[in-house]
């Protein structure tokens, strides 16, 4: 901007600038200050949103994580049944017994009583799968033995605690660091069990759940049948040995919808006695509760409003732990996708109940679980043959020579643009882009053919479509040719069947979000 020159007279100080110049400077300073103020407020807001306790527990799991086949996101939600605060102090006895209805501070240990994997695809329905807490599985990051999946956290934490104590770590630091080992073991165990990469996790403990419920109460839930779960006191002898284990939550609700306060909400998700399917019904309760909370958040506009989301996070941030890579803002962007009936909860099936070493456990077939999860998450065709028992499911990771393999995608499916989309997805996995065009033929099933030197890559790609790779002299060397069949549905996209789980064996019916689902 040109400024009016002010003539000097006899060495006197220059006169005041013209009013227009002063006005311009004032506006410039005002705009500058406004920009700084807005940006400062934004910085404060983002910092506040990300002020939740962070954890490095995902680091170890990420080293061995299977590759993603698309731009989906897997989030592990961990419900930790601990009667201690984040620093390892017992929660007040009266609070645990009277308010939480969770027995005494001495019981419970560090069990992950709720494990839910949330799969958010680039488009389409969000799938949430619960892993029953008593599933008997190989643990990783703990002691490497078979345990109930809920116990991986506690075993790893105990082992880490002993080592850290020997190094002189104590107090709150000891609790924080040993819990990290527990989280890491839980994430690794789930990741290996289901053969899916865990991208983020969130852990909430008993107190956290209570605080969240208190911030949101009253919460509407719905029961198929009336429930009465009286509290039964634990009986011990003079030496403190348990003669008769206690139980019950004190929950009494009629059939149909009920409004719960925080303490009742905790009882609702913790009840396992006086239920037809015991623990497995409890899992459905947890799913229904999350669906009800999500519905309430949607109704109140919390998920669409950063300010409201921030207020809720302010209440719960002290009780929630998330991984250090997780940007709350990114999640806030995805949060609206989790509403409006776009989420379906399923419970992974168990094979049978068993008693191992005096423990009541659920026996599961990991190979079957992996296959179900892959199908549910849209990463394998429903017709994919089951791998032989005792062998691992096909690894989703591309082979080391992926960059040397060119993928040609021919669209013989009715899905417009499928060739381009598939080509992009495969390039994202490390393959070289080749042709992406329409096919002259319309095969029913997707076919995968390969030229010389591309067998490994072709077999890997074939697992994506549940197809078998075949050699073809018509395909150039180093190329894999995929012809999408008429039965093709994009991985992660909504299938023709509105519920991908409909044809899968699950533990009980799915719980659908988008309202207040009724459960037993």
């Amino acid at each position, binding site marked *: *901007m040109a400024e009016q020159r002010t003539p000097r007279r006899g060495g006197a100080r220059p006169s005041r600038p013209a009013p227009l110049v002063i006005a311009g400077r004032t506006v*410039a300073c005002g705009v500058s200050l406004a920009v700084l103020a807005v*940006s400062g407020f934004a910085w404060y807001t983002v910092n506040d949103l990300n002020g939740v306790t962070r954890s490095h527990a995902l680091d170890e799991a990420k080293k061995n994580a299977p590759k993603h086949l698309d731009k989906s996101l897997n989030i592990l939600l961990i419900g930790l049944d601990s009667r201690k605060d984040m620093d390892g102090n017992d929660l007040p006895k009266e609070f645990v017994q009277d308010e939480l209805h969770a027995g005494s501070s001495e019981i419970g240990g560090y069990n992950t009583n709720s494990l839910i994997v949330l799969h958010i695809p680039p488009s389409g329905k969000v799938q949430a799968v619960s892993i029953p807490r008593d599933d008997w599985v190989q643990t990783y990051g703990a002691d490497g033995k078979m345990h109930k999946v809920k116990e991986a956290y506690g075993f790893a934490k105990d082992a880490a605690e002993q080592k850290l104590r020997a190094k002189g770590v104590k107090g709150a630091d000891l609790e924080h660091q040993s819990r990290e080992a527990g989280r890491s073991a839980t994430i690794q165990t789930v990741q290996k069990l289901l053969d899916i990469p865990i991208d983020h996790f969130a852990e909430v403990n008993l107190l956290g759940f209570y605080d969240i419920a208190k911030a949101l109460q009253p919460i509407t839930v719905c029961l198929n049948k009336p429930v009465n779960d009286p509290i039964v006191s634990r009986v011990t002898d003079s030496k403190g040995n348990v003669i008769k284990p206690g139980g019950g939550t004190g929950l009494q609700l009629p059939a149909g919808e009920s409004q719960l306060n925080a303490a009742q909400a905790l009882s609702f998700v913790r009840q396992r006695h006086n239920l037809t399917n015991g623990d497995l019904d409890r899992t459905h309760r947890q799913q229904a509760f999350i669906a009800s909370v999500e519905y309430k958040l949607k109704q109140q506009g919390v998920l669409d409003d950063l300010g409201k989301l921030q207020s809720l996070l302010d209440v719960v941030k002290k009780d929630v732990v998330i991984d250090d890579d997780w*940007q709350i803002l990114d999640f806030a*962007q995805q949060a*609206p996708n989790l509403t409006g009936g776009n989420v379906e909860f399923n419970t992974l099936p168990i094979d049978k109940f068993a008693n191992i070493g005096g423990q009541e456990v659920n026996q599961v077939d990991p190979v079957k679980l992996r296959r179900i999860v892959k199908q549910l998450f849209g990463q394998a065709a429903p017709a994919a043959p089951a791998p032989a028992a005792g062998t691992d499911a096909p690894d989703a990771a591309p082979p080391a020579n992926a960059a040397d393999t060119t993928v040609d995608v021919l669209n013989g499916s009715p899905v417009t643009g499928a060739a381009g989309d598939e080509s992009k997805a495969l390039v994202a996995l490390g393959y070289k882009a080749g042709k992406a065009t329409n096919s002259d033929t319309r095969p029913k099933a997707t076919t995968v053919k390969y030229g010389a030197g591309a067998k490994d890559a072709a077999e890997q790609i074939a697992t994506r479509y549940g197809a078998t790779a075949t050699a073809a002299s018509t395909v150039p060397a180093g190329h894999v040719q995929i012809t999408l069949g008429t039965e093709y549905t994009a991985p992660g996209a909504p299938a023709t069947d509105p519920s991908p789980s409909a044809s899968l064996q699950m533990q009980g019916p799915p719980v659908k979000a988008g309202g207040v689902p009724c459960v037993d």
Partner: protein
Amino acid sequence: MPAALPALGLPVLGALADEIFGGGLGWLYAACAVLGAAMAALVAGRRGWWWIVSGAPVVTLTVACAVDYLARGDRYQGAGLATQGLKLVSGQFWPMVVALVAALLAVAVRTRRTRKAHHG
């Protein structure tokens, strides 16, 4: 050298370099924005200082917004407009503050030198 050259040129160069080599606005952009503001204040005339100092935060944010939008405009669609916008604006707060401080420091240095020259 006209003051506008470092004031605008350096931030733009830094942003482009960050986008090409770093995959997003980062330290290089912030450093260039700060350096650009300081250099502009060093070469500008007395009357230009007002515009350099008050313009430093605005230039830093504007260049960041423009380059980021050009590089990944698809993220600013729908719900992404609020969240990505908030992320971008919040991320530029400290570079803006430091650019402003750098410009003020440069002005202070030059004023001191001028006074010394007059008195010396």
